[in-house]
């Protein structure tokens, strides 16, 4: 009789199936445990269902929580810290082997990992080389000035949507702020205390949004959302839009979906000219082991996490998805065996490059804000108002910041007396 335990994850579609593959591999490989993997469709429903289930004492043993839910998890007291779990179950893990940029996001102040980095990513810039050539663009867009120029040329060459974007704040605000070394919130984006306040409405981000607004007015940048019928990735793969910013995780899917022979490239996110580029933030999600399960399940969970961390699995995972390897050795091994030189995978190493571009600063360590899902929603609503309904940029962002601060204050009050560890 195998010990069963549950694993909830937030990926769906192609990526979701890859998770199922991983689970199957684990189940096939050993005879002691059986992992039951359930997709909760998306990151936010996973967090939502995990919380509801935890309140009902029906939480899974392992759950996949995205970057934005990190602080919510950390203060919940509802999990078993990664390090403790592995130690308790007799696994030795070289914790220093994780890329520090990645580990920082999920670790305590003392640097101890609470959760296991699993599917890590960062935002990248994708562009259609064929279209660039057709429009006579002979440079790689590394700055926003160049992006604008490229957009104008593409427009002139008859492309209706030179750059497509949506209201996901991850690329637009979080990654932008990181690589431009702009704070999103005070207290080192929240790392130094629950009393952090959002300041994105006073940084370069505002100008950036204004720039986007201008581009949209000139029809150089185009809004592409699910509600409008097509999100950015399909817009890029259907060659409707020639430039997008999206996660490296989509690298695999884009490669598979774009018609054979179409030339495209991935690059680090552009910066404004004259900006000293900083490292970008790690995205994706990590695996949390939930507290309150029977002892037996933790053995299985530890075995599974250990299994995922093996170099073979790490490489397999990075191969079949676009996610980056999370350990230095993993990355080195893949680099060594020429993974990044071959056609479909070429360019993914840039994600690591972006993540590790500089040592982390106050503003690029990560984001440690409570209720960050809500903050994201406030900002993207503001963006929606700005781009769809012509609202004033500064006013909307100010309002979003105010509302987001209220969220932070409520969080602070809710966890009054708790210390960030």
């Amino acid at each position, binding site marked *: 009789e195998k010990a069963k335990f549950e694993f909830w994850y937030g990926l769906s579609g192609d990526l979701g199936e890859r998770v199922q593959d991983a689970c199957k591999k684990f189940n096939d490989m050993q005879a002691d445990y059986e992992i039951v993997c359930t997709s909760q469709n998306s990151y936010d429903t996973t967090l939502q269902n995990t919380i509801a289930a935890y309140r009902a004492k029906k939480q899974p043993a392992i759950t996949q929580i995205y970057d934005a839910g990190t602080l919510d998890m950390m203060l919940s007291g509802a999990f078993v810290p990664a390090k403790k779990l592995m130690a308790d179950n007799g696994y030795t893990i070289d914790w220093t082997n994780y890329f520090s940029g990645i580990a920082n996001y999920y670790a305590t102040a003392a640097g101890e990992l609470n959760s296991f980095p699993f599917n890590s990513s960062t935002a990248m810039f994708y562009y259609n080389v064929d279209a660039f050539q057709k429009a006579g663009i002979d440079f790689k867009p590394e700055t926003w000035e160049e992006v604008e120029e490229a957009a104008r040329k593409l427009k002139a060459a008859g492309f209706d949507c030179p750059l497509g974007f949506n209201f996901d704040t991850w690329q637009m605000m979080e990654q932008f702020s990181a690589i431009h070394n702009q704070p999103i919130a005070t207290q080192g984006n929240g790392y130094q205390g629950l009393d952090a306040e959002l300041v994105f409405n006073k940084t370069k981000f505002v100008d950036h949004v204004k720039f986007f607004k201008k581009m949209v007015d000139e029809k150089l940048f185009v809004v592409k959302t699910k509600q409008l*019928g097509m999100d950015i990735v399909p817009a890029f793969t259907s060659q409707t839009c020639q430039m997008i910013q999206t996660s490296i995780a989509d690298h695999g899917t884009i490669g598979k979906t774009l018609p054979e022979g179409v030339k495209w490239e991935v690059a680090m996110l552009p910066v404004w000219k004259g900006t000293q580029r900083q490292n970008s933030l790690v995205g994706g999600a990590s695996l949390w082991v939930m507290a309150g399960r029977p002892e037996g399940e933790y053995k299985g969970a530890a075995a599974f996490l250990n299994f995922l961390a093996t170099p073979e699995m790490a490489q397999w995972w990075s191969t079949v998805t676009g996610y980056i390897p999370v350990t230095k050795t993993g990355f080195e091994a893949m680099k060594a065996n020429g993974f990044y030189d071959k056609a479909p995978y070429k360019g993914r190493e840039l994600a690591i490059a972006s993540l590790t571009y500089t040592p982390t600063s106050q503003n690029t360590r990560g984001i440690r804000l409570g209720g960050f899902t*809500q903050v994201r929603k406030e900002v993207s*609503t503001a963006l929606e108002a700005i781009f769809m309904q012509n609202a004033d940029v500064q006013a909307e962002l100010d309002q979003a910041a105010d509302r987001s601060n209220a969220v932070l204050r409520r969080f602070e009050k809710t966890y009054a007396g708790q210390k960030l560890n």
Partner: protein
Amino acid sequence: MEKRAVFKSWWLPILFALPQILLILLFFYWPAIAVMKWAFTLEPPFGGVAEFVGLTNFDEVFADPFYWNSVAVSLIFALCGTCFTILIGLVLAIAVDRRLPGSGLFRFLYILPYAIAGPAAGMAFRFILSPERGLMASVNAAFPDFWNPAKYGAHALILVIVIFAWKWTGYTFIFLLAGLQSVPRSLTEAAAMDGAGPIRRAIDIQVPLLAPTLFFLLVIMMTEGFVGSDTFGIVHSTTGGGPNHGTEVMVFRIVDEAFKGLNYSGASAQSIVLIGLIMVFTFIQFRFIEKRVHYK
């Protein structure tokens, strides 16, 4: 009307009512008490000790312009939904009540949309009224941006109201038709003898006599629009409350705030306000169900 109660046992009624009473206590009152508790504390998402904060949650709710926006959206949604369902239902009921050959078939067909789940209808209408394909694409081709619910809050609101009205018109239709048919034939005949033509009769005799039914439907549709299970489903499956809160009805906001925003306390406060509102509706309805504007 009080029924002449006939059986006298004291334990039998308790036995008969017990299963449902238990369910209701368990799944209605107990949760309702929990809502109360949460509304006056700051409930941590994962549970645990919650600090009592008095009316803070309510203050925050009332101070939030988007909350009032959701109240307004809910009101518009419920009011427009009610008006459309009742008006269209009334016109169709009057038409079918003329009993021309074939009207039986129409009667049969009109009720069918009632069977459809709001979310399923929402999905279908997302296609039917999509700006890029289906019907509206042609219109938009001629008049760019004539119809774009993803962009314009008003359009999105119209979209969800249309879906609601579509589903519920059959329901009001049936009640109104029955109401019309219970208007004694001799009254319309008397009016005919008095010289009134069909339209005149409809306006002077039939519609005024439908007043009780109309009122009943008004209350039912208002509550359905406010908190009916379709309301959430339609909004969730079509617009997700957007664009820019344009279709964020109260129920949607509550669920969103609780489960997405992890703000159980704020959501509970909103729930209580909503429950209070509905209680007022319920009260009105009960007063009128028992003694409606009966003429006789």
